Structure formats: structure tokens, C-alpha cells
């Protein structure tokens, strides 16, 4: 096997980017052609990522490691990308002549995130992170004139740039303390010096950059506006794939400590509780579906952190599982958002009224997805929460688990409001049936099946997650 083959998923992404770049050069816009090209390429991308899941090795002077941990996340990213492309049948939120660019930047963002999960050198991490951020900075304001898109774009850029600056500052501390930028070396040095203020400060400031991606409190300010302001498909991408990559890199960074820093744990516990509570409480008053999902994502960032701060292999495995669960559930929610708001506008929760009549399958998918987000069995969301809480409990954080469970109960209120809108309320003006095409039905059904089947039979995914987590240590 040649060394370059380790790089195949990324190379493939690059190739896709080139194709879309070429399409962007063509003078006459043709949305259907763009869509089918994207769909075809993205589905091959999933296959490529799956095929390379067993690869192992390192590249670029040890700055880049390919192992099960990174490959599992690459599969998730490729799937996330594919599913988001599936939602683009009516890409009405974005002007037709910009469609190739839209796909292009989605691709570069996926590429960057794939690189992010494989990077084991601080500067490479930084470059990958910035590439993904810059792609998103462009994607957000790409939306067709709603006015709010520019505000969202600027907000995203400002918060993102600030957190990048903070992160670079943190990286400099880390380098100063450990005299290396290689994660492999840091992992040996850092546990010995983690007690010193410079090391802990450096690590925390570094984490800030990733917390921004994950929308952890206090770096969450961008989330509601960006979710609402970006086109629905872009939001779906930010909410799913981008979060998964952030989880991966946070796991990577936290695992550097080797699990013996009470101070770091305290900080993460605080952030986790603050994220959950803030996200859940503010979500209660939201009227816009995407804003609601934004606040729910803030609270879910808190739940993921619980798994990560357990700093044990089971904890990391539970966080990986949770990330996957979150990806599926969230994409299922966004599928409904995209299909109900077919003109590409924002979706008010009230607009879901009568959905059970307009499209029973979408209503059912929405109900399962939001109950999954709320952590109700037998969905994958429950299994994720269960694993995360078990990991925390093994470390004896019972108060944290109780607080998280109370938060899950609070969150149930607004999730139920969504279900209520879909199943109970009737629209003021009679709405026509939603035309749901057969491929969409298949997609919805398979997402629902994944949510339920892996919720009931988690063994396989759990073993994969555990094997991936073992790669870190």
C-alpha cells in the first residue's frame, strides 16, 4: 500500500472541490445538474470514507495521523455531507448561479474537517480549523436576500476570528510549556506540567477555539443568529457535521492531559452545566424552529462535554457515540425543516401546525427526532445520554448527572412544543398536502430506522466507538 492512499478521503474531497470549481466557471446556471453531480459525488464520498476506515499510519512528518479514531469521524463527516446534499433538491435559499459555489464551500469545509480530525500537530490543527471556518464564513451570508444573512455572517466572522485569536494565544502557551507542537510529544510532557498555571491556561485558551465550533457557553452567541440567518441547508451542515468535527478535536485535546487535572475537570463541568442550562432555558421561549435547534445544540454541547470531561476511555467512547447520535437526529430535524419550508425561508414552529395531516411520515420523523434529542428511549439519543451519564457516574460525578437529567427534563418542554405543533395544532388557513418524493421518503425512513435500530441495538456502534477511543491513549 502506498503512503498516499492514507490520504484518499481527503484527496477525494479535494477532487470534488475541483469539480465544483469547474462547474462554477460554467456561465449558465443549471441547478439540477449541480444537484445530481453533488449527490453522486457525495455518495461516492461516503463509500470512499467507509472503504478507508481500516487504514492506519501517519503522514507529513508525523503531523497527520490516520487511525480508527480519525477514520470513524471521517465517515461521519462524509455521511453528514452526503445527507446535507440530499436535502438540496430545492435549494431555494440560495441563488441559482451560486449553487456550484455552495457545493464547493461545503466540500472544502468537509475537507478541512477531515483534516482536523486527523491532525496531531498544533499548527496543522489550526490551519485545518481555519479552513473549515472560512468556508463557513462564506456559506452563511450566501443566502438569498433576507437581510438577516449579512448580520449572521458578520457575527459569525467576528466571534470566530476572536476565538481563533484566543486559541492562537493558547497555542503559544502550550508550545512554551511543552517545547513542541506535536501532540504525540505533548501527551508525554503535559500530564507532568498540567499543574502549572501556564499549561492549564494554554490548554483552556486552545480549547476556546473548539468550543466556539461546538457553541459551548460562553462561545455560543453566534449560534442562534447564524442558525436563523444561514440558508436551511447550510444550517443543517453547521449543526451536524461541524459539531461532529468539533467533538473530535476537543476529545483529542482533552485526552492530552492524561486524565489527572482536577482543575480542567472543574472548568469543563462548569461550562457543561452552564451550556446545558442556558441552552435549555432560552430554547423554551423560541418561536423559530432553527433558533430553537440552535439553543438545543448549545445544550447538547453541554451533554457531550460530560462524556469528555470524564477523561476515561468509556467517556471518550460515549462522546463519540453521542456525536454520531446527534448527527443523525439533528439531520432528521433539518430534513423536516427543509421539506416544510420548501421556499427556503425560515420555519416558525407555528408553521408546523397540521403536519401530521400534511405529511404523516415527516411528522413521525420529527417526533422521533425531537424525542431522541430529548433523550427518550428507544431512540439513539437516549442511548447516547445513557452512555455519557454512565461514564460520568464512573468518575463519581453524581451531582453533574442529576443536573444533566433535570436539564433533560426541562428540554422536554420545548421538544414537546414542537411535537404539539406537528400533531395537535391545526393551521389557521388550510395548507395543502406536502409533496414528499419517494427518495425523500426513503431517506426519512432510513434516518428513522437508524435512530431506532441503533437505539435498541447499540452494541455494534458502541464497540466501534470504544475501539476508536482506544486509539487516543
Amino acid at each position, binding site marked *: 500500500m502506498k503512503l498516499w492512499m492514507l490520504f484518499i478521503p481527503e484527496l477525494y474531497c479535494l477532487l470534488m472541490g475541483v469539480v465544483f470549481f469547474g462547474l462554477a466557471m460554467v456561465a449558465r446556471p443549471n441547478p439540477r445538474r449541480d444537484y445530481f453531480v453533488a449527490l453522486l459525488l457525495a455518495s461516492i464520498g461516503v463509500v470512499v470514507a467507509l472503504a478507508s476506515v481500516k487504514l492506519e499510519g501517519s503522514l507529513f512528518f508525523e503531523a497527520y495521523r490516520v487511525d480508527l479514531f480519525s477514520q470513524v469521524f471521517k465517515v461521519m463527516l462524509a455521511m453528514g455531507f452526503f445527507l446535507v446534499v440530499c436535502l438540496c433538491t430545492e435549494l431555494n435559499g440560495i441563488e441559482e448561479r451560486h449553487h456550484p459555489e455552495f457545493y464547493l464551500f461545503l466540500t472544502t469545509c468537509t475537507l478541512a474537517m477531515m483534516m482536523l480530525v486527523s491532525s496531531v500537530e498544533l499548527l496543522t490543527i489550526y490551519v485545518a480549523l481555519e479552513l473549515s471556518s472560512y468556508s463557513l464564513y462564506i456559506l452563511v451570508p450566501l443566502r438569498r436576500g433576507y437581510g438577516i444573512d449579512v448580520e449572521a455572517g458578520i457575527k459569525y466572522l467576528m466571534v470566530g476570528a476572536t476565538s481563533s485569536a484566543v486559541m492562537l494565544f493558547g497555542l503559544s502557551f502550550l508550545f512554551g510549556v511543552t517545547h513542541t507542537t506535536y501532540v504525540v510529544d505533548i501527551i508525554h510532557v503535559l500530564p507532568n506540567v498540567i499543574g502549572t498555571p501556564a499549561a492549564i491556561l494554554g490548554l483552556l485558551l486552545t480549547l476556546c477555539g473548539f468550543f466556539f465550533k461546538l457553541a459551548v457557553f460562553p462561545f455560543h452567541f453566534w449560534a442562534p443568529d447564524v442558525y436563523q440567518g444561514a440558508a436551511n441547508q447550510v444550517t443543517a451542515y453547521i449543526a451536524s457535521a461541524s459539531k461532529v468535527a468539533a467533538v473530535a478535536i476537543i476529545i483529542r485535546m482533552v485526552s492530552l492531559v492524561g486524565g489527572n487535572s482536577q482543575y480542567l475537570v472543574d472548568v469543563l463541568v462548569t461550562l457543561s452545566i452552564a451550556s446545558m442550562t442556558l441552552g435549555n432555558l432560552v430554547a423554551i421561549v423560541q418561536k423559530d424552529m432553527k433558533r430553537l435547534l440552535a439553543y438545543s445544540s448549545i445544550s447538547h454541547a453541554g451533554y457531550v462535554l460530560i462524556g469528555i470531561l470524564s477523561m476515561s476511555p468509556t467517556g471518550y467512547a460515549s462522546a463519540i457515540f453521542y456525536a454520531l447520535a446527534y448527527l443523525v437526529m439533528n439531520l432528521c430535524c433539518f430534513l423536516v425543516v427543509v421539506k416544510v419550508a420548501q421556499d427556503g425561508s425560515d420555519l416558525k414552529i407555528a408553521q408546523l401546525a397540521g403536519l401530521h395531516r400534511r405529511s404523516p411520515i415527516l411528522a413521525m420523523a420529527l417526533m422521533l427526532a425531537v424525542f431522541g434529542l430529548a433523550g427518550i428511549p428507544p431512540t439513539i439519543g*437516549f442511548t447516547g445520554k445513557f452512555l455519557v451519564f454512565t461514564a460520568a457516574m464512573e468518575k463519581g460525578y453524581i451531582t453533574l448527572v442529576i443536573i444533566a437529567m433535570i436539564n433533560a*427534563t426541562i428540554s*422536554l418542554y420545548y421538544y414537546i412544543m414542537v411535537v404539539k405543533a406537528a400533531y395537535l395544532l391545526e393551521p389557521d388557513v388550510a395548507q395543502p398536502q406536502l409533496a414528499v418524493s419517494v427518495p425523500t421518503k426513503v431517506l426519512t425512513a432510513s434516518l428513522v430506522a437508524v435512530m431506532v435500530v441503533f437505539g435498541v441495538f447499540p452494541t455494534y456502534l458502541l464497540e466501534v466507538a470504544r475501539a476508536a477511543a482506544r486509539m487516543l491513549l
Partner: protein
Amino acid sequence: MEFANFPFLSAILLSCVVGLLVILFIPDERKMLIKWVSLVFSGIAMVLSIYLFFAYDKTKGGFQFVEKVLWVKSLGINYHNAVDGFSLPMLMLTGIVLFTGVLTMWELETRVKEFFAFTFLLVAGVFGVFMSMDLFFIFVWYDVSLFPMYPLIAIWGSTRKEYGAMKLTLYLLAGSALILPGILYLFVNSGLNTFNLVTLMQPGTFTPFQQKFAFILLYLGFGILAGVWPFHTWSPVGHVAAPTAVSMIHAGVLMKLGAFGVLRVAIFLCPEGWQYWAQLMAVLATCGIVYGAFVGLAQTDLKYVIGYSSVSHMGIVGLGLATVTVEGMNGAVFQMFAHGVMTALFFSSVGYIYDKTHTKMIPELGGMSKTMPVASGYFIVAALAGIGVPCLASFWAELLVFISAFKTYPIRGALAICALVVSALFMLRVVQRTFYGEKRDEFDHLPDVSFGLGIPRMILVAVIVFFGLFPSVMIDVIQVASIPFINGLP
């Protein structure tokens, strides 16, 4: 993997799950077909659960009909079903209430498919909790049985249905917010890496402190669903808002889920915690009994009356469990069964009256025994059972609980018995005002319960009378579990 010659317990679960799937694939318009499918599958579940009750080998005792499949190895989770003397009455109760509930909703016309689909999901969860021997599965089934309540009440209910549904769901899931940490606490501290209840309940697995701590989490968590005072406020509101069959299943079976959870999880795993907290349990239970009786006295809505009497009756279950005696446990489990059947009958007959007259306010009714003699008859039987008239099932249950409570906690026992007199008073007042007295002409044209619609009520009456006349059939089974358990206490 371990299987009895025929997996009866899984068959019960499957009858619900398959029923659910079949219903999902029937088009909405085929309402009759959906009802028949529901009836058939609920009938299978009922027959199997009754069969199990009588097929259980009382001389051998212990857990029988064991089914065990490894589920998640790394976490020690097994799909593990078994029954003992505590769970058999509950399974039978669920089977009966489900079947009669389906029959009671025979006249439902709006969104039939969704109604029965949600109902089967709910009941699958209930069966699952009663038969599961694995903490993980108990929790999963427990939550599965809770969340369908929201749509069931909010879509088909009445009287502030959305408020009632939301309150109920949030309360109950707040309960599970205490249960899951409790379960995980026990799982982690056992050091055995298993969720298996039978393994974990070996004496010496947990220190006394751990037991005390976990017990209070689990007791409060499950207690919310059991309507333990002061966490009962969701229950009357929820019962009133729910449609008839859901009220039946809910008050009849779902509240028992809470009490059963206290018994199966909290008491089984933390017996020392149980003895430690028994005083508190007795106080809360007595408060519930007295409070339910007095508040019931002031209600003018028939369903609220039943709702508060449920709080009172579930207090009796709690009091029985708090005595830490064989009689007390027997009485508590018997009361769970008796109360379940009785409330189902209550809600079933009130549901009929409400469907026809469109009111359940006591002052607006009156003289119903003349317009609807049969429907009134069913209600009156239920009321008599509620009062604790001899020859009806509740009598024996209440007797057992009160005798043991009086021995263990004389003052609280006496208070509870006094409250029983109050509850007799309010039941009789309700019966007198609603069914006797001045006949109202506006209800004259309304039809009485037909034979077909009467079948579910007849089944329930027959069960109440049967176990009232032959209480030993029930007590013998419960004893098989309770005597060894009490003797095995440290």
C-alpha cells in the same frame, strides 16, 4: 442465552409491538379493521398474561419463565425477563385493562390509527417494566411507557387537556431524572459491571450508606409516578384530561408502574435503605390517604373525584410497602391489582356517561340510575369496591394493609382508617347525587350501555368480584414472593 420452552413473556411484548407495527401499516380509513386488529393483539396479550398467572409454579417459587439474552456485553446489559409473585398480578392487570380499554374505545372515530398505535406503544412499555429483570431495560421500558401519554392526552383528551398532558409528562420525566442517576449509581458502585437485578440484589453488594442514598433517589423518582403525596398533583389533572381508555390504562396500570418500581428496584436492591426510610414512606403515604380523601370530598367533577380517590388508594399501597411486613407487602401488591381494576371500571363507566351527556359535573347530572341504569350500576359497583365493601377485591387488600399498618405504626394506621371513613362518605355522596335524586329530563333520550359496550365493564366487575370471593388465589401467589423476601432481609 436461556429460554423457557416457550418465551411467553417475549410473546406478550411482541403481541404489543407487532400489533403496533400492523396498525402502522393499515390505512387511516380502515377504522374498523384497526379496532379489530387492536382487539386481537390485546386479547392475545391478556390471555397470555392470565395463563402465566395460573401456570406459575407456586411450590417452586422464585423467578420463573426466565428469558435471558446478552444485549450489550461491555456494559453488562441483558435482555432478561422473568416473573415472580409480585409481577404476575401486575401483568394480568395490564392485560385485562388493555383489553377492556380497547373495547371501551370502540366508538372512537377521530384519528383511530394513531390512538391505538400510541396505546400499544405505551402498553408495551408497561409490560416491559413488569417483566424485566435488568435495570437498563426497566428504565427504557419505563420511559417508553411515559412519552406516549403526551399525545394520547393532548389529542384525544378533554378539560384543559394540553395543560394536563404537559404537566403529567414533565412530572413523570422529572421522576425519571432521579431514577437514572439512582440506577447508574448502583451500577457503578456495585463494581460488578452488570445491570442484572438478580445479581445486584445479592446481600452485601452495597454498603448501608449506598443503599440509603440510592433508595431515596429511586423512591422519589418512582414515587412521583405512584402518586406519592406531595408529588401527586399531576395525577388528578392528568386523569381528568385523558380520554377514557387512557384514563383507565393510566390510573389502572401506569400508576402501579411507579409503585412496582419502588418495590422492584428500590426495595429489592436497597433493603436496608428501605428499612431506614420506612418511617418517611409511612408518613407520606398516610398524608396521601388523608389528603386524597378530604380533597375528594370537595370535588364536583366526577373524574376529579376518582382522581383524588386514586391518590388516596395509592397511599394505601405506599403504606403497605412502608410496613416492612409480609402482610403489608401482600396487601400492597393486592391493592395495586384491586385498585387497578376498580379505577379502570370507574373511568370506563364515567367515560360512557360523559360520552353521552357531555358533562361530568356532578351538579349537572342527577338521577342517572333512572336514565342509564346499567351504566350507573357499573359505577356503583366501582364505588362500593373503592369504599372497601367485603366480597370485592379491594376489601381484602385494604384489610391486609391496615392490619399490618396498625401493628407497625398505630397512630398513622389509625389516621388512615379514619380517612377511609371519609372516603366512604365522599363516594356515597357522589353516588347519591349523581345517580339517585331528581331525574333530569334532558338525558331521557340517551341510550344506556348496550351489551357490546358492556362487555369490558362486565369483565372488570367479574374480576373484582372473583378476587373478592377468592382472595387466596391472589394472596397465595404474592406470598410466594413476599415471604422469602422478608425472611431474607438483613
